[in-house]
């Protein structure tokens, strides 16, 4: 019986993985910002809003979707020291449960940031929420807390007066966090079941807001840690460095991975390919014209997509780094939200709340819809089960055709 159940579980897990039904962390399950979902709407309008939920606090953290739940974090109070983890019923938009905590680390952030800036992560059974104050909490999907860590409590100089933004990733059963500031910097692997430290490694002493990316190699998954120094690939379970790229990199947009190639915001945009020997990775090309601003690049179907400071979406050839086409979206204000891609369409969100859905063509991009959400949007959305989940400063929206 147990073996039977085990097989059913394995089959279900595989099916879910193939359909990409969940969106379990910042930039999706594989940190590519690309979804295989084939039902997500290719335009956004008022009629595609399935539901809209008011949030108890602010946040730049994006939503994640696990099964029939959407999880979102928030922070509230005059000092941003009340931390919220919220489960929302994906179908109805009703809150299923909410848990709150008291921040144990420093909560000071730049005016545009909130303590709830990192996007939570899930392994499908648990949710791990992380905050600028370096509070890290793990709950089961029913809202029962499993463990709680305070990483600034443990390492009191690990904070940034502008705020911390790096989102955790979960690889197998290890939570990887990047905690990097001028005063104290480290990366840490934490056992998702117990909250205990598997490894801790020293990182460059420099403020950094990038998030880890994951690359699949012949030897298993590696986690890519980006900083002003460059990029380091580490083993998730041990933290051991497999290889390093030392030519420097941005501290805001994070690296994108497509197949065996990594696209890093370094000298504009640089494509590198690691080898199996652990040597310095091969630099395939770099081009200043493809430099991303704040949002991370997205690479899909042989094209790189970056958003410039002036609000221009730039498509590049992923093999050569040549600019293929440009499309002006919005010049006022800024883009902070990393766009997501599904069904050959890119979803971009301006900080004013204006969204664009762009059909990605070989030779040009075409804006299919513009929709104003009416409030600040600084985070990246989630795509799951035919829907787009969008988080603004005050609300969470579900966008779906037919409102499934």
């Amino acid at each position, binding site marked *: 019986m147990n073996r039977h159940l085990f097989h059913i579980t394995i089959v279900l897990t595989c099916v879910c993985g193939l359909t990409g039904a969940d969106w379990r962390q910042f930039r999706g399950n594989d940190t590519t910002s690309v979804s295989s979902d084939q039902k997500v709407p290719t335009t956004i309008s008022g009629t595609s809003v399935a539901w809209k939920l008011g949030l108890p606090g602010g946040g730049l953290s994006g939503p994640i979707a696990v099964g029939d739940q959407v999880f979102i974090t928030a922070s509230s109070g*005059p000092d941003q020291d009340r931390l919220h983890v919220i489960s929302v019923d994906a179908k109805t938009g009703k809150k299923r449960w909410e848990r709150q905590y008291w921040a144990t680390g420093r909560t000071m952030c730049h005016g545009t940031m909130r303590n709830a800036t990192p996007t939570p992560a899930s392994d499908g059974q648990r949710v791990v929420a992380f905050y600028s104050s370096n509070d890290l909490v793990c709950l089961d999907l029913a809202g029962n*807390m499993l463990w709680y*860590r305070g990483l600034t409590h443990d390492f009191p100089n690990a904070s940034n007066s502008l705020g911390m933004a790096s989102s955790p990733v979960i690889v197998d059963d290890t939570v990887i966090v990047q905690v990097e500031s001028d*005063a104290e910097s480290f990366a840490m692997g934490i056992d998702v079941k117990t909250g*205990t430290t598997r490894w801790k490694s020293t990182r460059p002493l420099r403020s950094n807001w990038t998030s880890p990316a994951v690359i699949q190699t012949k030897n298993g998954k590696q986690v890519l840690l980006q900083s002003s120094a460059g990029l380091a690939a580490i083993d998730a379970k041990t933290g051991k460095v497999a290889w390093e790229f030392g030519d420097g990199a941005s501290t805001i947009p994070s690296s994108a991975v497509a197949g065996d190639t990594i696209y890093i915001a370094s000298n504009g945009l640089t494509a590198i390919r690691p080898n199996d020997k652990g040597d310095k990775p091969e630099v395939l090309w770099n081009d200043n014209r493809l430099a991303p601003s704040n949002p991370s690049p997205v690479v899909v179907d042989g094209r790189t997509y970056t958003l410039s400071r002036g609000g221009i979406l730039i498509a590049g050839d992923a093999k050569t780094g040549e600019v293929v086409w440009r499309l002006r979206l919005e010049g006022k204000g800024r883009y902070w939200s990393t766009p997501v891609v599904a069904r050959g369409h890119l979803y971009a969100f301006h900080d004013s709340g204006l969204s664009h859905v762009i059909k990605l063509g070989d030779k040009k991009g075409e804006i299919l819809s513009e929709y104003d959400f009416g409030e600040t949007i600084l985070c990246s959305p989630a795509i799951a089960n035919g829907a787009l989940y969008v988080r603004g400063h005050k609300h969470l929206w579900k966008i779906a055709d037919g409102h499934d």
Partner: protein
Amino acid sequence: MKRMLLGIMLLAGIHGGRTDGFAAETGDLIKAIKTVGGKGEGHAAAIKSLKLLQAADASALPEIVKAFDGAGVLAANWLRSAFESVADRAITNKAPFPAKQLEALVKDTTQDARARRLAYEWLLKVDSGLDDRLIPSLLEDPSADFRRDAVARLLSEAETQLAAKKIDEAKATYRTALRGAVHDDQVKQIVAALKKQGETVDLQAHFGFLGQWNLIGPFDNKDKKGFPVVYPPEKEIKPDATYKGQLGDVKWQPLKTDDGYGVIDIGKQLENYKGSLMYAETKVDSPQDQHVQFRLGTANSWKLWVNGKLIFAREEYHRGMRMDQYRLDVDLKQGQNVILLKILQNEQTEDWAQRYQFQLRICDAAGSAALGKN
């Protein structure tokens, strides 16, 4: 097998309502949770205990509230989560809820301030009139959250009085609100309203900012190398001493600020010596031994000593400055206490990297001035 039986027995005890052994078992679970420390310490036992405690019925809630006494900041969040899981399930299932016991604990200011607030927020879900009954009496509560709610009510009342042209009553209400106000946004609102009526507020005294200091420097911090260097003021504080500084001999000199928020601006009041560091010294008298918070704001790197003991050191330049940016637990002794601050400026040239300032206040955990200004 024995372990499994123990687990079943514990669960049966908790789910089965009150039994003679229940309190002791809940106490054991809480005890294990309160052993949680930093760096994952105590997790193995705490995780097992939390799972059982989260499955308890609502009769465990008062004991969980009491358990916050002496709990560290990490353990407090573990206890909080247990409380919320139990309370959420009880309210959802419309199960018996110990409202009277919890309300009594909320009123009991000897209980932990965080726990009282937690109980209050969950009681509100079953007792919508609780805020009207309780909040007006909590203006000077140990909980900053309760104070905030009480102040908000008074501000609303004062605005109503102003609208009715009851000016003297409104001024009195604002003054009452000020007694409890610990959050700057509310204080600003009060100060602005009183100013319109021709009244002023001593903000330094209200928040407990230290406005009178003695400074010495500049000492060398070129290439940010001064942070670990032990210059003479770290070894001795002699008011009449002369030392070799970065630009020549340096002596202690008094420097005060009339800024309401106690900002000592070295760059403006003295000079923005690039690649330098200064020492600032002051003394405060405490009527008794007491635990207080030092709240520091600065965009510069710094080290802080109280009575010769290093409290904290931080090497971060120009990532922003805000009131209460750093909160530091300090034990003051009865009588005179000596405060020494090392404040460092780097050599950045950008417009946004020129601040050479600090502000320091002494308050209780709620943010209310502990000593007044020096």
